[in-house]
């Protein structure tokens, strides 16, 4: 009996010491910590980490659907570099992205400013203006496909029959001159509320004393905006612009539904080209090379953005 008790005692002490040692190395809460993060670790690794590495490998192969990949090094990338259609897609992607983000930024600031001015039913207006951001993007894209319709669309009806500013209807999405502007407009429509709501949160966090002090010093409305509001939401602006740049650059749905990259490639952006190369032309290796072509730029953007987002949290 006594012996047994003693051995139990040593065992407990040993476990205690081992546990103490592990605690010192792995941190005081390591057991519950690792238990709780294991599922995340599993998902991140299997759904993003592994596919990402596999994508890099595939981009260096000739891979046809259903056949094993053949390693070719950087051949896909080299070929794309001199491919005129791909070059155009890169240019289109930049036009699409910066055109959209620029307007979203301006509209977002306007939205935040009107929502912070002395108005009634503030939360009602906020709710209404956020609807494009929560509604399914496919639904919005289909709505605009219908609104832009060349023969029966309501936009032409308004411009030709009601306002009489156009002699005849325009095929907004089917004419090379207007297709890009139309898809950009839809992207702006969908995305500006996110800018607005984020800036609104930032503006609410600016202490009222700063505005009062500026008013005492005789600052005009414009000066207060420039010297109090803008510096106050600077960090949020950087974060939102970078986030939206990544999202817009990789936006697939709007362009795919509205034009599929047409007419004649005038709205062909990189994500749609990736899809078409993979599932239209069935060339998977080349398709991934299209998706990964600007990876260095994307990686830098993500790193900078992640740093800003973590810093924003810590304060």
């Amino acid at each position: 009996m006594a012996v047994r008790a003693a051995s139990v005692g040593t065992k407990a002490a040993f476990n205690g010491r081992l546990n103490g040692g592990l605690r010192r190395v792995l941190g005081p809460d390591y057991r519950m910590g690792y238990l709780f993060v294991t599922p995340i670790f599993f998902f991140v690794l299997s759904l993003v980490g592994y596919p990402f590495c596999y994508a890099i490998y595939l981009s260096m192969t000739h891979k046809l659907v259903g056949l094993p990949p053949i390693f070719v090094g950087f051949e896909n990338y080299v070929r794309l570099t001199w491919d005129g259609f791909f070059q155009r897609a890169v240019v289109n992607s930049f036009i699409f992205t910066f055109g959209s983000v620029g307007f979203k930024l301006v509209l977002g600031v306007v939205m935040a400013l009107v929502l912070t001015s002395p108005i009634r039913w503030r939360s009602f207006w906020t709710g209404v203006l956020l609807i494009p951001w929560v509604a399914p993007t496919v639904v919005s894209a289909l709505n605009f496909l219908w609104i832009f319709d060349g023969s029966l669309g309501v936009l032409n009806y308004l411009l030709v029959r009601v306002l009489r500013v156009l002699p005849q209807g325009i095929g907004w999405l089917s004419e090379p001159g207007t297709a890009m502007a139309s898809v950009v407009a839809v992207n702006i429509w969908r995305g500006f509320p996110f800018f607005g709501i984020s800036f609104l949160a930032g503006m609410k966090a600016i202490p009222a004393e700063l505005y009062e002090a500026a008013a005492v010093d005789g600052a005009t409305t414009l000066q207060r905006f420039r010297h109090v509001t803008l510096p106050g939401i600077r960090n949020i602006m950087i974060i939102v612009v970078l986030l939206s740049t990544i999202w817009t650059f990789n936006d697939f749905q709007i362009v795919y539904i509205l034009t599929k990259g047409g007419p004649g490639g005038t709205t062909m952006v990189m994500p749609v080209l990736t899809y078409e190369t993979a599932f239209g032309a069935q060339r998977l290796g080349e398709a991934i090379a299209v998706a990964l072509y600007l990876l260095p730029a994307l990686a830098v953007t993500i790193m900078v953005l992640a740093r800003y987002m973590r810093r924003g949290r810590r304060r």
Partner: protein
Amino acid sequence: MNITTRAQTAFAYTVLVTLAVLVLFPFYWMTITSFKSEDQMRSLVSMFWPRPLVGENYGQLLSKTDFVAWYGNSATVAIASTLLATAVGTIGAYALARLRFLGRGFLASATLITYLVPPSILFIPLYAQMRNLGLANSLGGLIAAYPSFTVPFVTWLLMGYFESIPEELEEAAMIDGATRFGAFSRIVLPLAAPGVLAAALYAFTQAWNEFLYALVFITDGRLRTLPVGLASFITGDVYGWGYLMAGAVLTTLPVIAAYIYLQKYMVEGLTAGGVKG
């Protein structure tokens, strides 16, 4: 109120109304189109109100297409992946926000970076992976793939939420004899309930709206989710705009209903999701 502020307020209302009209018009247009007859649409009469107001588009949608099956598919996928992401994200976020263990900072960064990696890079290798696992062309494949964006998002959102709950509450509970787990499940979790709800709702709308993976993974027409099913209506030569818009209305309803009901939580979730402070 002096004259300048009054002028500013009037200006603010003008801008608000203009933005609201631009935001709401496509939804108004979608709704009235869904109640118009084919004849009325083609003849461009009474553009802004259905005359006669008909329900035939809805009848056609529900009886002659796979819309009802798609609705079930979308609900299955969105609910299953939301439950999964919320459970995994909640405990993970608590660990990353509060517990002290080796590798925490690294894992927190990795989760955030994962959230920022765009699907347009991942969809081809993920598709290959699902095919190897025998999950291509099944709802299971979508349920398995959607955590790639919902888990990092929910985790990132809730990390901020847990950090905002004072640590002293847990310490007090543990001094009173609660275990770390007890402090988490009885003190922190109830306090974080609004945040968890916001995160879950947001994950639900993301899964409900997802398009690219569903387009690529699913080949069987009846297994489509709503967004892909709706988009498939436009591949024909003649678009039936009436029933397409009826489908669009029914697809938007659950999202908008959830949003109106829980607007406050969702607005918090939207802002905190990207940004805080």
